[in-house]
């Protein structure tokens, strides 16, 4: 383990991607480069994971002063919360190069850049640095969607770009507000995240800044009612971009809430948590119910993803340790299950040239391995015990019950809503008789089968033996709540207004 | 006494403005702009004399140099415009698109 491992994880893919873009490399070289670089990143990340000692604090810290007059620094570090999002990206992205072998050079180059930028955003410990990576992250998605997207790519591209940029600007204003407030209170310029927790924010401007952050993250997650860019973008984007958006980028929104909003705006957060929790729960139900009306399986998965993100966000808003830990665990579980489902949807689309559910059928008998993989990912997505999806979902529901009975009960309906559309889709696509379109469906090739195998195994291992993963997360979440006692204390009085007789006594 | 100089300068400047606004021939517009520059030069020189220092003179020389450079560029642009549309009417050139 060397000193600047985080910088390498961030900048190796970005530089490789830029290099590919400026040189006249062929498709094959681009794919090969992408594969090598992403595998190298994976090796580094695994090394990082092994060396991570779960103290709860930032580890592998790099600190280089940057704009000293404003206290901006090139400051990186990972803790148990960011580590898992970083790992999800590193583990999942190499698959894309294995599976999709015939795309343009820019496709692979942009994928590399977005990988680096996402790693940067989760490792950044300085708000300005975070903002820079946050913005860079969007650019490759913009290009991938605009250049290689489906037939209605332009409106979708415009919508996602404007939507996220609007959110980003609000966040920038809020970041500036935090820096200025810190200077006013402590007479020192800094944008370091860990110092912001000392700020004592109150008044109307703080509420505006709180919502500045919240809206930026809500758009990225996406949280109801800011999700409307999602169905179009996820459907029209090329598979890899959808995969990146759903599996990792959406999670960085949740990460942002955990990192910025909860520690800094503790008072405002406690005040609005119930509102946000309802937003998460309603989003889950709304998108989950809308999913059943979809005729396009990619769009159905898009709604499913939005639905699950509602639950993940809810876990953060519940302000207790089980729900938060469950959220972080579910982030990884959802990245593996839904991410893989989107890749499978890409494979289905590539082989049948259709995205319409009704056109397909009987694939289980034509492609048993594919059906098996798909079924495992699907079951993880609906939270079946024994797969990764259960642990997180259970803890979130558990935590939500403590937070507020009504929210908890509504959150529980995800068990039913998720299974309705998934089974319906599975029935139409994999069961019943084959249709002319699916008649000649080829099963996964050996390379594809081996590519997905680690993730499929990971889904099951994470469901059966989650404790090694959880033990890396819990010190950070415990510390998180130790630092934010006022939030936790505040929570005891705000909840259970609906059913006071069910109030669970604090131990 | 400066009033008279300034009055003349204002009159010249307004003549220039009216020329720029009302005339459609590119050359006339160009000459009107020159007229406005010279009105400004007159004012500079008058103030210079009034304050008894050389600052105004310096600026007047500067304006002349700029006007000369501008004339060189502007004439080149006019020739291009003429090549493009064979006309020197400003109303013809109402689109940025070439």
């Amino acid at each position, binding site marked *: 383990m060397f000193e600047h491992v985080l910088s390498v994880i961030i900048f190796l893919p970005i530089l490789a991607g830029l290099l590919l873009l400026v040189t006249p490399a062929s498709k094959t070289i681009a794919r090969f480069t992408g594969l090598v670089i992403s595998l190298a990143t994976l090796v580094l990340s695994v090394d990082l994971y092994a060396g991570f000692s779960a103290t709860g604090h930032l580890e592998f810290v790099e600190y280089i002063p940057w704009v000293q007059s404003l206290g901006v620094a090139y400051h990186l570090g990972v803790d148990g919360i960011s580590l898992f999002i970083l790992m999800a990206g590193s583990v999942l992205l190499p698959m894309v190069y294995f599976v999709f072998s015939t795309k343009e050079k820019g496709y692979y180059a942009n994928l590399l850049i977005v990988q680096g930028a996402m790693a940067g955003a989760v490792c950044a410990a300085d708000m300005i640095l975070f903002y820079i990576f946050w913005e860079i992250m969007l650019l490759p998605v913009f290009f991938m969607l605009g250049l290689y997207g489906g037939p209605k790519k332009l409106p979708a591209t415009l*919508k996602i770009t404007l939507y996220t940029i609007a959110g980003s600007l609000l966040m920038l204003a809020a970041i500036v507000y935090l820096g200025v407030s810190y200077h006013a209170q402590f007479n020192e310029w800094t944008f370091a995240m860990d110092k912001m927790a000392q700020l004592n924010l109150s008044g109307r401007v703080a509420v505006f800044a709180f919502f500045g952050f919240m809206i930026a993250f809500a758009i990225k997650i996406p949280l109801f*009612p800011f*999700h*409307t860019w999602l*169905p179009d973008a996820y459907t029209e984007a090329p598979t890899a971009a959808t995969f990146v958006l759903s599996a990792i980028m959406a999670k960085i929104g949740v990460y942002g809430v955990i990192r910025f909003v909860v520690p800094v705006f503790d008072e405002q957060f406690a005040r609005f948590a119930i509102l946000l929790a309802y937003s998460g729960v309603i989003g889950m139900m*709304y998108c989950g*119910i*809308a999913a*059943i*009306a*979809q005729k396009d399986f990619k769009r159905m998965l898009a709604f499913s993803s939005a639905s699950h993100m509602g639950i993940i966000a809810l876990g953060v808003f519940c302000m*207790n*340790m*089980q729900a938060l*830990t*469950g959220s972080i665990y579910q982030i990884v579980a959802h990245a593996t299950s839904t991410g893989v489902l989107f890749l499978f949807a890409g494979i289905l689309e590539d082989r049948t040239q259709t995205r319409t559910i009704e056109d397909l059928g009987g694939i289980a008998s034509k492609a048993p*391995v594919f059906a*098996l993989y798909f079924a495992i990912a699907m*079951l993880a997505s609906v939270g*079946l*015990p024994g797969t990764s999806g*259960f*642990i997180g979902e*259970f*803890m979130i*529901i*558990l935590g939500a*019950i*403590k937070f507020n009975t009504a929210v*908890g*009960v509504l959150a*529980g309906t995800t*068990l*039913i809503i998720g*299974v*309705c559309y998934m*089974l*319906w889709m599975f*029935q139409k696509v994999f*069961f019943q*008789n084959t249709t002319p379109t699916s008649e000649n469906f080829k*099963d996964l090739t050996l390379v594809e089968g081996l590519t997905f195998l680690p993730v499929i195994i990971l889904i099951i291992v994470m469901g*059966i*033996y*989650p*404790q090694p993963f*959880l033990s890396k997360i*819990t010190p950070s979440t*415990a510390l998180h709540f130790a630092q934010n006692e006022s939030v936790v204390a505040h929570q005891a009085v705000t909840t259970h207004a609906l059913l006071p007789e*069910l109030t*669970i006594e604090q*131990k | 006494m400066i009033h008279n100089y300034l009055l003349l300068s204002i009159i010249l400047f307004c003549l220039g*403005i009216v020329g720029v*606004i009302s005339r459609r021939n590119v050359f006339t*517009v160009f000459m009107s702009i020159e007229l406005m520059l010279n009105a400004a030069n007159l004012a500079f020189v008058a103030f210079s004399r009034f304050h008894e220092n050389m600052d105004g003179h310096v600026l007047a020389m500067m304006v002349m140099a700029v006007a000369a450079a501008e004339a060189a560029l502007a004439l080149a642009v006019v020739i291009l415009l003429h090549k493009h549309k064979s006309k020197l009417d*400003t*109303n013809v*050139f*109402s689109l*940025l698109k070439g």
Partner: protein
Amino acid sequence: MEQSVNYLGLIPLFPLLGAVLIGLVHVFTCKKIKVPEMVYGILACVGPVLSFIMALKVFVALKALPAESRFLGHKVFTWFSVGDLHIDMGFLADPLSCLMLLFVTLIGSLIHIYSIGYMGGDKNYGKFFSYMNLFLGSMLILVLGDSPVVMFVGWEGVGLCSYLLISFYSEDKQNVLAGNKAFIVNRIGDLGFVLGMSFLFWGIGSQGFDYISLKANVHHLSPAIALTVGLLLFVGATGKSAQIPLYVWLPDAMAGPTPVSALIHAATMVTAGVYMVARFSFLYAHVELAGSIIAWTGILTALLAAIFGMFQDDIKKVLAYSTVSQLGYMFAGVGVAAYSAGIFHVFTHAFFKALLFLGAGSVIYALHHEQNIWKMGGLKSKMPKTYITMVIGALALAGCPPFSGFFSKDEILYSALASGHFGIWMVGVLVAGMTAYYTFRMIFVVFHGEPRDQKAFDHAHESPGVMTVPLIILAVGALFAGFLNLPAIFGGDQIVSHWLAPSLTEHHPHTSIFVEILAIGASVVAFVIGIKIAYTKFGQGASEPAFSGFTKFAYNKFYVDEVYNAIIVQPYKAIGSSIWKVLEPNVTDGPVKAASKLYMAIGTAFKVFQVGYVRVYAIYMIVGLSIMSLFLSQSLN
């Protein structure tokens, strides 16, 4: 208090490994080469049989311990631990789970052996056994789990296998729909289970969330939360064990292969709810209201299903409704706090219902997948072994003394009467008569009288030994299992109840001998009346009756499915498409669209100034400069 043994984890592991192995072999070979059926058959039976042997070992180990400390535990690893929440992947064998363990593995093994014959020639032979083994593994986790969360793993796992096996013949849309229905309805129940667990955890779970700790701390639970937990867990049980209002999936579940119906939808999985209530007897014993609700739900389900059962014409549907009805009895038993009686009925029911289903499977197999009883008839001469074993099963189901069903059912009815639930007892006796009627209606129509379909009759034949031997073993069980819990009035000493006592929190009410005789007498009379009516109507052969009025209403199952479809399924779909077609583009996306329209409008408004003439821009410049100079001169003054 709790002795640790390291082999408990192996019991579910054997079938699970079998499932993975068979599944992998099947998936990777099914497109290319055909693996001989015998390989799958042997692989599939190894796991269940090994588990059965281990279960016997557990039984012997428990037996050796003194009665009050009969607990064997094994914590394999820490499953997940966050803050106060600490869940071990742990297994617990106590008398209750041991009893379940024994009959689940025994009947599971028998049905696996039977399936070798029944499924012969199916192109997805391997897949079938993989699912069956997976089911058995999940069921054993359910039974052995030492905390509600571990139990939930098995609970959902058996639901999944049920789904997979119902939609086993997946080319037919109806089968897949039945599978979907089963999974979704089960999930509704599972929601209750998860919520119940959550409330229970926040109530007393932080001291430990395994059954032993929960039992020790249950008195800390406030009454309101205890009631909530009890009812929510029961919602889970109604889903899994097909009680009102969630029973609708079980009759449809008969779309699966018949051994599946026998194993999953009769003998084991559907009794999980009863097992769960008995597991939580320490909780339910404290909340009488929850117990009453359970008992009434159970007995009403028993009545409703018996009514439906009287008019079915599919042999498997008759048995399916009888299963729902018998499950209702079990819930009535555990609801009136007679947990051992309920569990004993689970035990005997597993034998005779598995026997009846396998017998029905044998008939269906002989008639080349004909399930309508009105196309059968006179089969007793053709299939004597099947006939005799099925009659034994039917007598047990109908509650004829001294068959097993009589003792267990009577125990439940007696407990209801003794604990003062007079209404439940009355309905129970009525249902007992109806049970006798519909069971023997089926037996008479299928086996007696003249053949209705001569061609099918001529081709009918007795099933092979691999199918009849399990039938005979089960028939022995159905005959004699009842004697295991012979009440004192017949000179027995209730072995099963005493065996179960350390696991359960129950009080045996002491009543006069008169009450006991009354209960037994009423049951016998009901049985005799039921069978008499069946004999007069169908004993000499009868043709398919036409239905009208109430019978038609009952034949169509009170249109419950249609009502559910109209008030739940269709509105749900309608909400889904209205969200997608109306709400999403107009309301939710409205502000976004409005924002873009606003920008368009502002742009259009300012467009008029952009005429493109240089002169006009010059005017703007001059006007602007003039205004600025004016302000400047103002500020200088």
